[in-house]
């Protein structure tokens, strides 16, 4: 019994750790399916995390914080759009620039605004997204296994967690069952075909990047006003790149993105738990080995040693409309 509740606890923290990666990976999915490389997930998330925490701290409302987060992240997505769609610049360089912009600007603005060396003040409970108890959670909690899973694992997360998990089927539906999704997949593979059919490549890519901006906004707000209670310097700590890895690992498909993000969530939850634990035969596994595992797995997958992950064909190439 004790072992079971241990597992539940660990899965619970895995879910919490998976959420920002999941949202960012879905953001990357829209963008890259449309043919725009998105190295800037990290930066957009970081900018959004700052905006959410700062606005929530000043106004006391997590909702205004969330709006600010989405605004900042979408604004950054638009810089990326102008550079890579209109100016036909290098999308990777633009993404790298966005990451540094967020890294520098959040601390620069935070430093002069709150005078706490780049962090924002701690948020009160009302200024954060608080846990939502699902109906009958307490009553059903008494039922062994099923009830416990319902009460402790499924119930009691904040709103953004549920939105993130809902975004997976919605994305799958949009991508594979709607006209927009068909066009989105097509524009990432063969933009010229769409252009010939009289559909605007520019417009589609802008739409994809805006959706990505909104999702990164949610991810950032989750970090600083859902999971945490303030913003601190570089608080995304590479999650945007893990999301990128998850996206590649899941071969740019929404449902596999969910499983990959949960797997990466379990790995980071395990890092904390496995410290100092002796395994039979291998002995103690260094924390750093588990830390590096998502990245190593992605490298191995990309190299085609286990399966193959092939990017949308037109990704990274600016589209030049013939005159």
């Amino acid at each position, binding site marked *: 019994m004790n072992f079971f509740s241990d597992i539940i606890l660990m899965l619970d923290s895995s879910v919490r750790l998976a959420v920002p990666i999941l949202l960012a990976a879905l953001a990357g999915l829209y963008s890259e399916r449309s043919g725009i490389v998105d190295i800037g997930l990290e930066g957009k998330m970081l900018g959004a995390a700052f905006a959410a925490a700062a606005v929530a701290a000043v106004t006391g409302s997590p909702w205004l914080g969330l709006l600010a987060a989405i605004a900042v992240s979408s604004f950054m997505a638009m810089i990326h759009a102008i550079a890579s769609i209109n100016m036909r610049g290098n999308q990777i*360089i633009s993404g790298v620039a966005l990451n540094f912009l967020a890294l520098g600007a959040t601390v620069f603005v935070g430093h002069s605004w709150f005078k706490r060396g780049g962090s924002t003040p701690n948020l009160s409970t009302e200024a954060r997204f608080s846990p939502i108890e699902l109906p009958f959670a307490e009553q059903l909690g008494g039922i062994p296994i099923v009830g416990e899973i319902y009460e402790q694992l499924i119930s009691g997360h904040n709103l953004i967690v549920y939105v993130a998990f809902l975004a997976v089927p919605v994305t799958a539906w949009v991508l594979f069952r709607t006209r927009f999704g068909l066009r989105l997949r097509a524009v990432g593979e063969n933009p010229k075909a769409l252009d010939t059919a009289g559909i605007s490549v520019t417009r589609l890519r802008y739409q994809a990047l805006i959706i990505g901006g909104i999702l990164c906004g949610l991810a950032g707000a989750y970090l600083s006003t859902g999971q945490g209670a303030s913003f601190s310097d570089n608080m995304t700590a590479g999650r945007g790149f893990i999301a990128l890895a998850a996206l590649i690992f899941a071969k740019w498909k929404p449902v596999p993105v969910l499983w990959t993000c949960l797997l990466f969530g379990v790995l980071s939850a395990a890092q904390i738990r496995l410290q100092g634990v002796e395994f039979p035969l291998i002995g103690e596994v260094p924390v750093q080995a588990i830390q590096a595992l998502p990245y190593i797995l992605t490298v191995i997958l990309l190299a085609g040693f286990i399966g193959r992950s092939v990017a949308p064909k037109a990704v990274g190439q600016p589209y030049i409309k013939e005159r």
Partner: protein
Amino acid sequence: MRAQKPLPRWVDIALMPALNVALAFVVGGLAVAAVGEDPFRAMQVLIFGAFGYGEGWGFTLHFATSFVFTGLAVAVAYHAGLFNIGGEGQAYVAGLGAIMVALWLDQTHWVFVLVGSTLAAMTFGAIWAMIPGYLQAKRGSHIVITTIMFNFIASAFMSYMLAQVITRPGANAETETIAETGRLPLLSEYFSAFTYSPLNITFFIGILALIFVYVLIWRTKLGYQIRTLGANPEAARYAGISAVAIIIIVMAISGALAGLMAVNEAVGVQKRLGVGYVQGFGFVGIAVAFMGRAHPIGIALAALLFGALYQGGQELAFVMPSVSSDLVVVIQALVILFTGAMSEMFKPVLLRLFNRGNGEPEPAGD
């Protein structure tokens, strides 16, 4: 297409990058004004902090030396059409080789430490960069993604090494310190004007590296092959150039150059290796390489500018407490954005300007 004259060469290689960098500084200035400080005074403080006195110069040149290495690393790969974002990880892993050899030879003489740690740093950096190179060349995995992943793997690997393997007992994840006899000489020992600045003998390795890259890229057969591959992979294939070999060699050279930063920073100044010693300087190399148009002269100037920004930025944060030194990171980001991703921003305006000067009629719009 439009019947417009192309821009003169000097506009293309000098004026446009200068305008892009100027725009980055204008935006930076607006940011300073936004937090209620005078941007012109900030500029004065920054320039004085970087160039106003000997010690400032010493710090500026010291930072610039590191940026020359990481900038050249990005540039060399870029000539082959490869974007190496892994300079950060390569410099980090190179630190391991450099410090191990330096600690091994530190009872002999600094010359042995310099030569030994330089070779070790280059080897370790090269190996760490060759793996992504090999994976790109042989297995087709994208070099950008692989080098990003390798930065994180390097970070985990190095924190394990520093915490468990070559750690100084009782210390929080750092190595032993290099003994007095093996320490690299500071330039202040010869030129007292540099006073307490960390500028050391590695500065001259930086100058050698600049010359080496110029000769390599523009004066050797290998360089010709590298540029052909970067300009047109198809043409390179028909010319009988092996893309696999070139990619692996270029990445090795790139990693070796990034690795030299370890000699300057870890062996030369900190005299030990600590967690995260690279401090993002590997990424500054990206900005330096784009601003310098992947040419050694441009890189030297860009590295000097960023060296001045890093040194002057600290002075600025001291004099104007409401301006954080992270302003430098913002300007760095804007330089990457404007000179790298939006490099042709001013082209339409300049084209119109130069064509008007020649009295040619403006063709009808699109």
